[in-house]
């Protein structure tokens, strides 16, 4: 029996070993006053829940089969918002970014963000009038970047906020199936300001910490641009010759601006060191 008691003592000793070396100390994850960290918005483009692949055909609920060849858009004026409503506005001069499917450019990288727990993110789609009216020289570098990404008209017309191009299937008058090109170029014009801002809730907190990166993974649904709350049929916008569709102005841009408010949703948030997206 003595021997058995010794065994019990051994079990207790082993257990206490575990307990004693359990320790919850951590550093690097505390909020330090005045410290800054990094964050990124990662845009994962999709079509009605499916991943977007350039060149793949998708049939939308309008009954049109669309093949996307190009998808670029401008993200701007990023604001990170805490639970108490206080916010951090990213410096205006650096707050314009281009997401490009064809160039594999999906990330908005943000530096020098005050550490803290952020619960919402707000950003614009396109370029606001205020910035545009600051003039060409004030935003030369972004204009050049936009130009290089096919996101500009002439300076007097301004930026393209969204450049969405491809082909769609059309049955011609002779009953022949054809692939016709379409172009949707979203932007503001002298008649209407089509810049819009969205505020998205984060499913879990974006914890911005010193030497850490908080990555906000956003699912973008391109399908809603034409097939959102308001439906826009490409067929209804065929040119006079019936050979192509070009949506670059008028009422359609107002509808697209409205539809784009539901284009984005945060899927998840990564926190901690080394949580970069590919």
């Amino acid at each position, binding site marked *: 029996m003595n021997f058995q008691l010794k*065994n019990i003592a051994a079990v207790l000793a082993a257990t206490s070993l*575990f307990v004693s070396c359990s320790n919850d100390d951590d550093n690097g994850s505390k909020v330090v006053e005045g410290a800054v960290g990094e964050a990124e918005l990662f845009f994962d483009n999709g079509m009605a829940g499916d991943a977007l692949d350039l060149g793949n055909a998708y049939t939308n609920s309008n009954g049109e089969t669309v093949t996307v060849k190009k998808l670029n858009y401008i993200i701007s004026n990023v604001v990170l918002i805490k639970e108490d409503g206080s916010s951090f506005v990213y410096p205006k001069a650096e707050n314009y970014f281009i997401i490009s499917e064809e160039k594999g450019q999906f990330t908005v990288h943000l530096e020098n963000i005050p550490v803290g727990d952020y619960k919402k993110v707000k950003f614009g789609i396109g370029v606001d009038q205020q910035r545009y009216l600051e003039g060409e020289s004030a935003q030369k570098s972004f204009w050049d970047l936009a130009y290089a990404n096919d996101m500009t008209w002439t300076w007097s017309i301004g930026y393209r906020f969204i450049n969405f191009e491809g082909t769609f299937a059309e049955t011609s008058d002779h009953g022949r199936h054809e692939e016709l090109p379409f172009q949707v170029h979203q932007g503001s014009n002298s008649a209407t300001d089509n810049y819009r801002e969205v505020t998205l809730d984060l499913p*879990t907190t974006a914890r911005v910490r010193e030497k850490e990166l908080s990555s906000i993974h956003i699912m973008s649904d391109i399908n809603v641009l034409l097939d959102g709350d308001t439906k826009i049929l490409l067929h209804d916008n065929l040119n006079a010759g019936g050979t192509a569709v070009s949506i670059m102005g008028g009422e359609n841009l107002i509808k697209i601006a409205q539809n784009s408010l539901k284009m984005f949703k945060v899927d998840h948030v990564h926190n901690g060191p080394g*949580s970069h997206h590919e």
Partner: protein
Amino acid sequence: MKKYLLLLLFISQFGFSATITNIPPPNFKHYLMDFDDCDACGCSASGGGMGFSSMLDKNFVGVRYFNQSYSSRDGIFKNSPWIDENFNTVQLWARIPVFKNFQISALVPYHFHNRELSTGRQTIEGLGDITVLGLYTVYQTKKDSTVFTHMLQAGAGVKAPTGKYNSAASTGSVNPSFQVGTGSWDYLLAAEYVIKKQDLGFNAMLNYAFKTENDQHYQFGNQLNYAGTFFYVVEREKFTLVPQVGLAGETYATNKQYGEDIPDTKGDILFSKVGLEAGSGKFSVGLNAMLPISQNLTGGRVEANYRWSVNLNYSL
């Protein structure tokens, strides 16, 4: 590490003491007890409650290999690719009597897992989380007194974070359980009940794992494992066969990070299982397979395909 080695020393001491305390080796006729696996990897949907058990040996040391096949969605979209995940584990396991009506169970797993991500093949390998469980026999029918014999055991244990937890693998959109350990101290409660009439028996087991936050501030959800297994003892002069069939289930609570619920991480699964054990002399071998009947793991982003195991035990 030193402490873990010490633990192993303690465990081996039990083994040693068992052999010299002159506890009679269990008779094969006196079949018994499930060995309860209790969350071998500790990660959600990775090994917990496999319920693979020795229906032959009450007390033993042995080695077991088990394989778990999963498919996991690599991406956030409906049409994101499904990738195969293979979880392999070699486990030293033992159930050792310490004194009358009290046994210690220990599990020392070594994992080698792999999966084919769109970005390439990913492998992880290493010592897993060691589990030590004490089981007390609450009730046991005296033999030959009734037609039915009953046995009830209850116990508690601890799972130590001897396996390395890699935070990068648990965040994001793929299976968060692709780990060799939870990185956390987890605490277990377990109960087993066996009813037997002549050669036919039924084993019911239930266990619950309380999981704590690891040093990366990730906390796997608490886990409930349960199983019910019918077994039949076929005894011959030279050997004993125990075919078995049953159901096993697992439910997982939501994982947390920094104390916040992570959406779509809870789940449940129900398996059918079949097995066969064969014993001769002091040795026995076992073969088990499990196929899911219904499941909803990680918001539908992870699917279990099958599990199987093979083991070699030496009866104490």
